[in-house]
């Protein structure tokens, strides 16, 4: 009884949730864009008004901007590199029949369940800390000066923390992909004279490419908004050596109380994220086509 009336009744009934979802997205976006064209600094009440693209100009010409842009790309790229390659190797290892396979798999997945603030604090205090950390202890044991990772290589240190969190995700997806590989294909390649290395390159890697694409796309979305790890460990420093775009927006709006500038930064970040997404889809999206 799909009449005109029942169809419009259906529309009427789903409209509240559709409208709510639409407002949920549109209002914050609209307000962000609105604020990005306003002079709106919480430290200077009363001096509000339309300023055109001035907020954008300030944000884009801020010397920290290009550092932050570069840091963001380096962080995302570094984590992707480590997780995809490391994930493949771990998946190959976990695919081997070993005693206690179930427990090993749970152990591998465990870091994914640790919340970012906690894992960043654990790394900061128990690993990287030159006095109390285990890396410092190991350095001293071999007679070297302990290295202050977060002070001297802040971006790399954060990259490693984030990669540690995301490695299980990549491993899990790639492992399931690996298990779906037909063993007769590997045997056929073996009969055809392919060495272990050739079998990996010509049979396994192409088979895993689709899963790797999913890993890269999903991780990029989440990695562009990495925040807790930076806030807890380095606060974007020293200087702005570990400031990413996300963190820069936070500094603008919540540390310098410049709502207008922060909003402009947010819009810039959204645009840049979309550019990255377009590039990614161009480069690897074809892997998803059947």
């Amino acid at each position, binding site marked *: 009884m799909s009449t005109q009336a029942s169809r419009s009744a259906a529309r009427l009934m789903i409209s509240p949730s559709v409208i709510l979802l639409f407002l949920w997205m549109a209002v914050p976006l609209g307000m962000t864009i609105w604020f990005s064209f306003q002079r709106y600094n919480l430290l200077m009440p009363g001096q509000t008004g339309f300023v055109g693209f001035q907020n954008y100009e300030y944000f884009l010409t801020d010397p920290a901007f290009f550092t932050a842009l570069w840091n963001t790309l380096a962080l995302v790229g570094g984590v992707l590199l480590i997780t995809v390659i490391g994930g493949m190797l771990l998946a190959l290892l976990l695919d081997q029949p070993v005693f206690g396979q179930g427990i090993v798999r749970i152990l591998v997945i465990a870091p994914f369940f640790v919340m970012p603030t906690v894992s960043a604090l654990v790394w900061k205090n128990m690993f990287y800390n030159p006095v109390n950390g285990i890396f410092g202890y190991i350095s001293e044991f071999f007679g070297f000066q302990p290295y202050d990772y977060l002070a001297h290589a802040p971006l790399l240190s954060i990259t490693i923390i984030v990669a540690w969190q995301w490695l299980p995700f990549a491993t899990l997806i790639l492992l399931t992909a690996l298990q779906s590989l037909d063993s007769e294909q590997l045997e*056929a390649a*073996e*009969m055809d004279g392919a060495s272990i290395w050739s079998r990996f390159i010509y049979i396994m890697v*192409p088979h895993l490419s689709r899963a790797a694409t999913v890993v890269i796309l999903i991780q990029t979305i989440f990695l562009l908004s990495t925040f807790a790890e930076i806030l807890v460990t380095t606060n974007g420093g020293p200087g702005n050596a570990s400031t990413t775009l996300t963190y820069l927006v936070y500094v603008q709006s919540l540390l310098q109380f410049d709502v207008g500038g922060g909003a402009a930064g947010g819009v810039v970040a959204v645009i840049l994220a979309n550019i990255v997404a377009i590039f990614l889809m161009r480069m690897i999206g074809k892997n998803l086509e059947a």
Partner: protein
Amino acid sequence: MGQIELKGVTKRFGDVEVIPPLDLMIDEGEFVVFVGPSGCGKSTLLRLIAGLEDVSGGHIEIDGADATDLPPAKRSLAMVFQSYALYPHMSVRKNIAFPLKMAKIDPAVAKEKVENAARVLNLGDYLERRPGQLSGGQRQRVAIGRAIVREPAAFLFDEPLSNLDAALRVNMRLEISELHQKLKTTMVYVTHDQVEAMTMADKIVVLRAGHIEQVGSPLELYRSPRNLFVAGFIGSPKMNFIEGAEAAKHDAHTIGIRPEHTLVSATEGRWKGKVTVSEHLGSDTFLHVETEHGLINVRGDGEVSLHAGDTAYLSPDESQLHRFDAQGMAI
């Protein structure tokens, strides 16, 4: 090139002995079929020859040289898998060229060989397609092409036709037989289908639970099966077995008579029975007849006009009777 000899080969998975010590000689240029019910170890035996499984004992010799510990690629054997095992991300051309690429053969020579193989197998128009775009029969041919280009000493086929529909199966059966005529290379073929075995083989190896029950040409196996198992396995429909008094008349524990060696009549004959099912195929008529000696299958010509419920008289051809002792061995 292409002589394979198994000497006391055994295979155990844990405590389970899948293949007890087994000797077999496969001569150069022969088309050998391993046939048996599922789980009889025929695929395992093929994988042992291929080197995909390690033997637990005994020796495998290829062309007189010990190949027991050689890796699969070094045995100069090529295998066609049941699932075809084509590489889905490569075009047909790249699939066929893969073994040549792995052997680091000059690309120009490789191209020539791939095109030759494609011509032999009528794959010329499909070289740039992916396996996913091909039909089952075409995929099968690509898998064979990939085996041919290596110019192996012997081909190993692991139930290559079981994923095809009936009509295509008959076609591919012919094509593989023709290929064997053309190449004159040793072929070892695994199947559970006795029709495939009968039509293609120079030599059939009947296996049960890892044991070789009988080795021989198709007609040898058909005419003089060594025991009850082979007698029942080879031939379609199955041979009828009769025990008891009727068998004792022939000094045997069991007698066997093939459906095609029994005369059927509506009026007179040795055994009287009632038709339970009749299958009229036009060329032949298959009757299931319930007699005092049990259910007997008979094959008559297309003119037999008996139907379910009718009374039928059966007369076995005495000269075609098979006799077996209490152990099931032929007398």
